[in-house]
């Protein structure tokens, strides 16, 4: 298969020859190529040629933070629809969070999710294991059994809940060292955020909604950084949302501690002002998410932290919810937003079009770094000869209004409805096989 006329990381136009799922050759666009032995294009039923039309080629995106909802909430999303959504967004691998029903806290459940991913094949599904049994924060789950299972879990998280017990967090950080694991913490001090509805600040005071103070995130991050340093473990901080958190992580990194962090697309673009006033009305729970949308100053701090590498990764926190869980009064609504199909566009809007990040930076933050943190050797590799052909073709010149009804995801809870965002994923290839072509599922 030949992917013609694409610009790797926005560089000069090239043609990419893919043979047996690997990149066999990269040559100037339109130049004559060599014949590759053992080309499986025909027998695999793949297209001979994919026209890139000058699109940007990036390594397939890797999401460290996806809620696929299966098993348990198949009304919101399934592994099939969630991975279709991922492919449409340019992803070739997603980490499926553990807060399913039952919770992914045993080898059995993580293997089930892993097998479902294998079966549908729209992208690789790497299950995340729960840190504690039932996400209860009381007893460590069998982390080693999950690590040794067919799903070979390396990322452990009680996401949705914080491992707030300091001793338990310390033990988890220590324990996963035995299999090169990482604990991904949802940093939220529970007592400071009891019944919390939105960012605590000017808007929450006016709207009479209980506040989710920045300190509830920052205090846990500070504690966890110190714990990780003390026991010499890897810590990953989920969905960093405040300027204060950025400062703490910057400090921890300056000490040489093994701390990584992610930011969601929505925290790079949206602010808590939308809760008060938006084209979708006031108090619209489409903007309800955990951690909550913060202030403009936080957004600016997160953008510069992502630009300078203090924040390593963009992770979607794709959180599908059925419509009835969002078409309610604010307090009754579920928290979360879908994000796989808009992530790259939002990152272009917030980071690339603002000059903060080039396409090489995008590839690092959305593909290479998450693959490194998640220990996925087959993903996040530079597009070069011999690498697996995990490729996304992206047209940054397109502009379109976000239309939730076009999503592959089962859920429609996007905060971007009606917004015009740049860019369009034209094609996604997973080990040489197209999962998306011409913007549609292949």
């Amino acid at each position, binding site marked *: 298969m030949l992917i013609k006329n694409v610009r790797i990381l926005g560089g000069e136009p090239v043609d990419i020859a893919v043979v047996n799922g690997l990149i066999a050759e990269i040559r100037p666009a339109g130049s004559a190529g060599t014949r590759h032995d053992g080309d499986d294009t025909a027998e695999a039923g793949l297209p001979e040629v994919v026209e890139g039309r000058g699109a940007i080629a990036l390594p397939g995106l890797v999401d460290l933070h996806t809620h696929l909802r299966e098993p348990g909430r198949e009304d919101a999303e399934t592994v099939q629809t969630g991975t279709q959504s991922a492919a449409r967004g340019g992803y070739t691998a997603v980490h499926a969070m553990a807060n399913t029903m039952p919770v992914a806290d045993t080898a059995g459940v993580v293997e089930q999710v892993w097998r479902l991913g294998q079966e549908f094949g729209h992208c690789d599904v790497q299950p995340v294991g729960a840190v504690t049994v039932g996400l209860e924060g009381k007893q460590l789950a069998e982390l080693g059994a999950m690590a040794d299972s067919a799903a070979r879990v390396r990322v452990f998280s009680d996401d949705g809940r914080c491992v707030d017990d300091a001793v338990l967090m310390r033990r988890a950080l220590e324990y996963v060292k035995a299999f090169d694991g990482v604990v991904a913490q949802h940093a939220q001090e529970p007592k400071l955020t009891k019944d919390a509805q939105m960012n605590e600040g000017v808007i929450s005071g*006016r709207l*009479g909604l209980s*506040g989710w103070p920045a300190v509830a995130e920052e205090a846990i991050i500070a504690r966890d950084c110190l714990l990780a340093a003390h026991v010499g473990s890897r810590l990953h901080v989920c969905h960093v949302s405040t300027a204060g958190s950025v400062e703490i992580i910057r400090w921890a990194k300056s000490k040489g501690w093994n701390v990584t962090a992610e930011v969601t697309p929505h925290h790079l673009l949206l602010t808590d002002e939308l809760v008060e006033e938006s084209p979708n*009305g006031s*108090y619209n729970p489409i903007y309800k998410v955990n951690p909550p949308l913060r202030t403009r100053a936080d957004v600016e701090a997160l953008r510069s932290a992502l630009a300078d590498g203090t924040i390593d990764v963009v992770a979607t926190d794709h959180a599908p919810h059925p419509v009835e869980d969002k078409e309610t*009064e*604010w*307090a009754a609504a579920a928290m979360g937003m879908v994000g796989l199909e808009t992530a790259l566009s939002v990152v272009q809007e917030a980071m690339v079009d603002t000059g903060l990040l080039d396409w090489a930076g995008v590839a690092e933050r959305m593909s290479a770094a998450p693959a490194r943190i998640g220990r996925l050797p087959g993903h996040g590799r530079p597009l070069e000869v011999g690498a697996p052909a995990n490729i996304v073709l992206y047209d940054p010149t397109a502009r379109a209004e976000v239309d939730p009804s076009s999503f592959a995801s089962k859920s429609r809870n996007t905060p971007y409805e009606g917004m015009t965002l740049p860019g369009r994923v034209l094609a996604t290839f997973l080990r040489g096989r197209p999962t998306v072509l011409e913007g549609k599922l292949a």
Partner: protein
Amino acid sequence: MNRHLISAADLTKDDALLILDTAEELARVSERSIKKLPTLRGRTVVNLFFEDSTRTRISFEAAAKRLSADVINFSAKGSSVSKGESLKDTALTLEAMGADAVVIRHGASGAPHRLANWVRGSVVNAGDGTHEHPTQALLDAFSMRRRLGNLEGRKVTIVGDVLHSRVARSNVLLLATLGADVTLVAPPTLLPVSIGTWPCEVSYDLDSVLPKSDVVMMLRVQKERMNAAYFPSEREYSRRYGLDRDRFAKMPDDAIVMHPGPMNRGMEIAAEVADSPRSTIVEQVANGVTIRMAVLYLLLGGEI
């Protein structure tokens, strides 16, 4: 005026004065032996109460009936709502019944904003969570104006649990619109962290504010706040922030005392202060009906 009355911030100064002036006219009707006006005949007002609030519901009901509207009372208890019906489905049901106005009381802040997306009629906020209670602020302003005249430059002190008070939020907004100078007094734990951005002054010391106050409005303190460590004990709260006889004596001679009710006598307000001639607490209830008549009348476009 807007089609809905959801926040006191929806009202311009002209809107607010129009409501207060209309209420004055309607108050004269209330003094007649036959209190009923035909202005809203054939119009339907639904009282949609998701929280128990007999006082507010009766007040709206009396107001609508005095304007000859048909009133439907819908309380969440024992209805389809207690069986899990969503606010949206309840709204669509009311819409199908042809409600011209929906008066909503709800425990969730912002519920009236959501309701307004789903019904064509006017939405009147009768208290939403810890957000706002605009008709309470209007009746308070009406009560103040009847006692003190023009509110421009008047010093209004609001004391108590501002953080959780819909009455305080609506009053601060409306009184700022009407040109009064508001000072909030509370323990710092019961003020929002962003209080500095509100159009008012803030003090932690009631005694220093009282001598400069034309109006002192005491807010109800929920006893359960004590368990969440907002203050150490009822006794300490009462000692620092309660309006007792000694503090009452520090107020200027013509200053008035208000309370939106229901009161905790002996906690935030001493019984003899509540019952003094300078207390407007009973008038506030009567004025509640009048102001709600004015609101319904103006929103539904009746004619006198």
